[in-house]
């Protein structure tokens, strides 16, 4: 099995053989039209005269009964009758009715020595017999007989049949036979003496490409070589020079040279396109002369596009432009001649404005691939206005769709905002058939090119507003994942969803996002009386009754989270949970949630509640599930690559589409929101870490500062590995859970992770990680930490493992910093100022004045100071705009009292931060850490 050429190769071989074998007669015969199967014509007329579907079926059943009785009858049918009935069956089948008999009679026709009987027999078989038919052996016998008949017309019929059925079984049955005929056939004797008998097919087709006189045979040979070259390029390398030579002859010829093969004044368009296609199987030729000759051909083709047309017929321009587009494809494929690329881009630019819709469509399509070349990406971008205009004015939806594709492909950081805005506005009126795809594209671009995540949040909420029905789960999961993983956008997200939910009618997807985000981060906006806990709750609950069961379930979970966040609304929420419509809800899921949450809120202590309902840990970052969805929708081939690293020369960008199961979640996800992102190569993951794996010597610390006011999140991520953290501290002790996620589908071997600590810290790994980490799996490591005395330097986490044979070393700075050992201290105004004065020695105070790096939002600032570990003291500072905090740093040897004061100046967009502690090194370190956060 499987040793012969594949079915496709086989058919292409046949194609060549077919041409080589067909000897067209020289004299013109008198044509007799149709062979007068009168019975068939009568039957067809009858069917056409049927007034109704019922009448037609009746007539057909009558005919089927008639044929069946003829086939079953005692009297042996003559060849003509058999042919006629088989033909009628074929007609009935083509009308869309099932045929379950007659196959044997058709196969019998193959052994007739009358041409038309054989012909109908073969036609029936190629239209109606499927490859696994039990008749296949009989059919193969018939074919074999005809192939060896030495009658060229019978041989042709047999070859056609093999090509038409085209199944693997048939290909295998004739795998040996066909090449033998080809090599033995007259074509070779005509062309050249053949010595290399060991490689017959290769030799034959290359010889044909070189010497072939008839364009038809050369075209077929080129098809065959292209197919073979895709499988084993090395074996057919020599075809490059032959193809260039052929192409050059065609391109420079006066069209008269090719007589018959000139199509509407275009010289051999089919052969030209096939040659250009063959060349796309190879990189640009290395030989300078050959390369020069090819460049010349391509330039000539580009030049011809500017010449006045030789005919007004559309056939002329189609054939000419077909060659031009194929030449442009080759130029894009080579991706090595900047001048040609720019010319190609300009040519396509002209077509973008052409009055012929087909050309505008193809130009948009072609530019999509051009956009991914580093040489032409910028040139493509210059057409952005034209493409946007196409999106607005094209009357044909399939052209508009290509425009969307091109905008997606040409998008980068410089134009993302404009493109996303245009797509959003197009979405308002877009055809229903393509809305979902546009939604996915907008979501991907907004995420990929978000510098400012408030823009990202706005964009997704707009998507939900404009096309909520087309926003799939993946999209709204994703926005939540991102908000949870990025603490700098959480306050804004809470504020924005709160505002969006004010709309009288909002889409259910917005309620889901709003419920989730307020449940997690509602506290960040609760300081404002307009969005106090009760207002937030009432707003969410006003949507409850309009929502479907899954959304209601999500809202219930948001309510229990509210009970934890805002003790003041506990009673209100308990009352809602206690109502009959919840506790006795007909839906089991809702009922269960209501009962459980109510009990939980009644019996659990504040501490337990806080632990159970803690803020969600960051999501493991894998490939965006949205991108995976878009790939599924479009097929990988049709999705332009929007990776930042544009394709290099002949860039074969590889996409690894392995889907792995989601790994065990970090903690139980109360909102039952399993994002299930599929793993695999990341196109989008890098939103979270722009750099690739650092060399072993470099200690990665990009995310370090993000953990100063926060204990959970993604610490590190590259193409292979993701490291997530969750930690908790009490006095001078800490415990850190480190999660290692294998993002690939391959095992990591010899996996080790160790921590090197500075002296003032004691770190102890509770148990070592298993040395193998399965593809897609996540493993956990627990780290105990003890702070002996105050410190500046952070411990380093060293990870080593083998992936696909190479040793990977990663070193990451662990975010264990002094402020983690803070215990907040509440105090009154008087106490505060008394202590403040006590710590008045110059070395005890450290002060810094700095520019705001983030929007100066009061709520966010408060949350950060609390996250830093100090108690936030209200009403202490005479200026209400200032923030004041106090706490004690616990180390084993000593405790250090700390006071801090942060004074914002919104006009100047500046802050002044003052730290006073009993120990200068502590003041310095805390000031350094905290001042980086605003």
């Amino acid at each position, binding site marked *: 099995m499987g040793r012969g050429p594949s079915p496709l190769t086989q058919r292409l071989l046949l194609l060549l053989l077919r041409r080589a074998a067909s000897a067209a*007669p020289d004299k013109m015969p008198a044509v007799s039209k*149709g062979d007068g199967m009168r*019975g068939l014509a009568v039957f067809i007329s009858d069917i056409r005269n049927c007034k109704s579907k019922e009448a037609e079926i009746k007539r057909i059943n009558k005919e089927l009964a*008639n044929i069946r009785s003829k086939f079953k009858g005692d009297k042996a049918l003559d060849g003509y009758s058999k042919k006629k009935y088989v033909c009628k069956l074929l007609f009935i089948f083509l009308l869309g009715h099932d045929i379950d008999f007659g196959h044997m009679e058709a196969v019998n026709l193959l052994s007739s020595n009358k041409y038309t009987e054989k012909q109908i027999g073969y036609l029936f078989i190629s239209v109606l017999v499927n490859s696994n038919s039990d008749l296949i052996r009989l059919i193969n016998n018939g074919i074999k007989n005809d192939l060896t008949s030495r009658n060229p017309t019978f041989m042709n019929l047999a070859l056609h049949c093999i090509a038409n059925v085209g199944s693997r079984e048939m290909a295998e049955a004739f795998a040996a036979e066909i090449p033998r005929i080809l090599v033995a056939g007259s074509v070779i004797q005509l062309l050249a003496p053949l010595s290399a008998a060991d490689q017959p097919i290769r030799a034959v087709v290359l010889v044909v490409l070189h010497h072939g006189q008839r364009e038809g045979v050369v075209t077929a040979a080129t098809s065959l070589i292209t197919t073979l070259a895709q499988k084993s390029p090395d074996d057919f390398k020599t075809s490059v020079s032959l193809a260039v030579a052929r192409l050059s002859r065609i391109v420079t010829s006066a069209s008269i040279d090719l007589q018959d093969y000139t199509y509407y004044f275009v010289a051999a368009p089919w052969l030209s396109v096939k040659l250009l296609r063959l060349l796309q199987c190879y990189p640009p030729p290395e030989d300078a002369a050959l390369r020069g000759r090819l460049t010349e051909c391509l330039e000539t083709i580009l030049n011809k596009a500017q010449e006045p047309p030789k005919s007004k017929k559309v056939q002329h321009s189609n*054939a000419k432009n*077909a060659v031009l587009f194929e030449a442009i494809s080759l130029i894009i494929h080579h991706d090595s001649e900047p001048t040609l690329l720019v010319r190609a881009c300009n040519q396509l630019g002209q077509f973008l404005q052409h009055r012929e819709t087909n050309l505008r469509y193809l130009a948009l399509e072609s530019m999509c691939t051009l956009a991914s070349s580093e040489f032409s990406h910028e040139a493509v971008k210059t057409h952005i206005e034209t493409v946007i205009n196409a999106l607005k004015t094209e009357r044909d939806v399939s052209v508009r769709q290509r425009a969307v594709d091109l905008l997606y492909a040409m998008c980068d950081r410089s134009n993302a905002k404009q493109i996303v805005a245009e797509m959003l506005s197009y979405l308002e009126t877009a055809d229903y058939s393509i809305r979902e795809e546009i939604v996915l594209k907008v979501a991907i671009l907004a995420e990929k090119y978000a510098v400012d995540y408030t823009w990202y949040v706005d964009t997704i909420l707009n998507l939900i507003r404009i096309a909520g029905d087309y926003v799939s789960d993946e999209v709204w999961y994703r926005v939540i994942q991102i908000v949870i993983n990025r603490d700098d956008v959480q306050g804004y997200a809470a504020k924005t969803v709160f505002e969006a939910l004010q709309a009288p009618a909002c889409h259910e997807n917005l309620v889901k996002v709003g419920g989730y985000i307020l449940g997690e981060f509602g506290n960040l906006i609760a300081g404002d009386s307009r969005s106090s806990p009760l207002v937030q709750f009432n707003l969410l609950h006003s949507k409850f009754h309009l929502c479907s069961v899954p959304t209601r379930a999500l809202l219930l979970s948001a309510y229990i989270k509210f009970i934890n966040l805002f003790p003041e609304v506990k009673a209100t929420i308990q009352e809602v949970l206690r109502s009959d419509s919840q506790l006795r809800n007909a839906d089991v899921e809702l009922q269960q949630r209501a009962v459980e949450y109510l009990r939980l809120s009644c019996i659990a202590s504040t501490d337990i509640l806080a632990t159970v309902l803690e803020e969600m840990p960051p999501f493991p970052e894998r490939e965006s599930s949205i991108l995976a969805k878009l790939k599924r929708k479009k097929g990988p081939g049709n999705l332009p690559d929007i990776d930042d690293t544009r394709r290099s020369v002949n860039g074969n960008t590889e996409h690894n589409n392995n889907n792995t199961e989601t790994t065990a979640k970090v903690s139980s996800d109360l909102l039952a929101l399993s994002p299930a992102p599929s793993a695999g190569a990341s196109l989008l993951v890098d939103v979270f870490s722009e750099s690739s794996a650092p060399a072993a010597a470099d200690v990665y610390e990009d995310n370090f500062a993000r953990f100063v006011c926060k204990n959970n999140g993604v610490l590190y991520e590259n193409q292979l590995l993701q490291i997530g953290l969750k930690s908790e501290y009490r006095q001078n002790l800490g415990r850190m859970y480190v999660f290692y996620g294998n993002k690939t589908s391959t095992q990591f071997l010899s996996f080790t992770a160790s921590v090197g600590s500075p002296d003032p810290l004691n770190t102890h790994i509770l148990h070592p990680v298993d040395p193998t980490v399965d593809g897609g799996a996540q493993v956990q490591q627990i780290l105990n930490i003890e702070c002996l005395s105050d410190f500046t330097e952070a411990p380093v986490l060293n990870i080593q493992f083998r992936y696909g044979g190479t040793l990977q070393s990663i070193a990451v700075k662990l975010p264990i910093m002094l402020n983690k050992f803070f215990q907040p201290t509440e105090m009154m105004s008087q106490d505060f100022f008394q202590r403040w004065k006590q710590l008045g020695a110059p070395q005890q105070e450290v002060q810094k004045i700095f520019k705001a790096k983030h929007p100066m939002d009061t709520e966010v600032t408060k949350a950060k100071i609390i996250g830093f570990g100090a108690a936030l003291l209200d009403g202490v500072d005479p200026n209400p705009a200032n923030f004041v905090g106090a706490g004690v740093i616990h180390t084993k040897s000593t405790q250090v009292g700390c006071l801090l004061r942060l004074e914002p100046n919104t006009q100047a967009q500046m802050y002044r931060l003052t730290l006073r502690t009993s120990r200068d090194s502590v003041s310095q370190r805390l000031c350094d850490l905290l001042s980086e956060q605003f």
Partner: protein
Amino acid sequence: GMRFLLLFSRQGRLRLQKWFTPTPEREKKKIIRDMTTMVLARKPRSCNFLHWRDLKIVYKRYASLYFCLALEDQDNELLALEILHRYVELLDKYFGNVCELDIIFNFEKAYFILDEFLMGGEIQETSKQIVNRSIEASDMLQETMEEYMSKPAF
């Protein structure tokens, strides 16, 4: 290469189907339904190309018949339009001013002509003259009218 060629009328009646790769019967029915609804819904003067699944669809209307050809991703759409045109020219030459009825009543001929022109999803011969001569040659091999007329119709 080409995957399939369908000819259907404005009413969505299929007149010819040609599959260049083995396709299960159920799949064929689904494709035919998709193609007819999709192509017939297109407004006049739209472009002749569509994306469908991972294939490119090239279609063109000639009088009352739609010709619809499916191509693989790498194939050339414009030239595919000319493949359709060349096939119409061949039919025209054979039937003399071909119309839908010719194809209904002589469907087997339409298949034979197609077989001379395309094979296994590739164009087999681009010279109109050579294809025409092959078709005429095979017609020569038919038994004469008289031979058939002497036989019973049913």
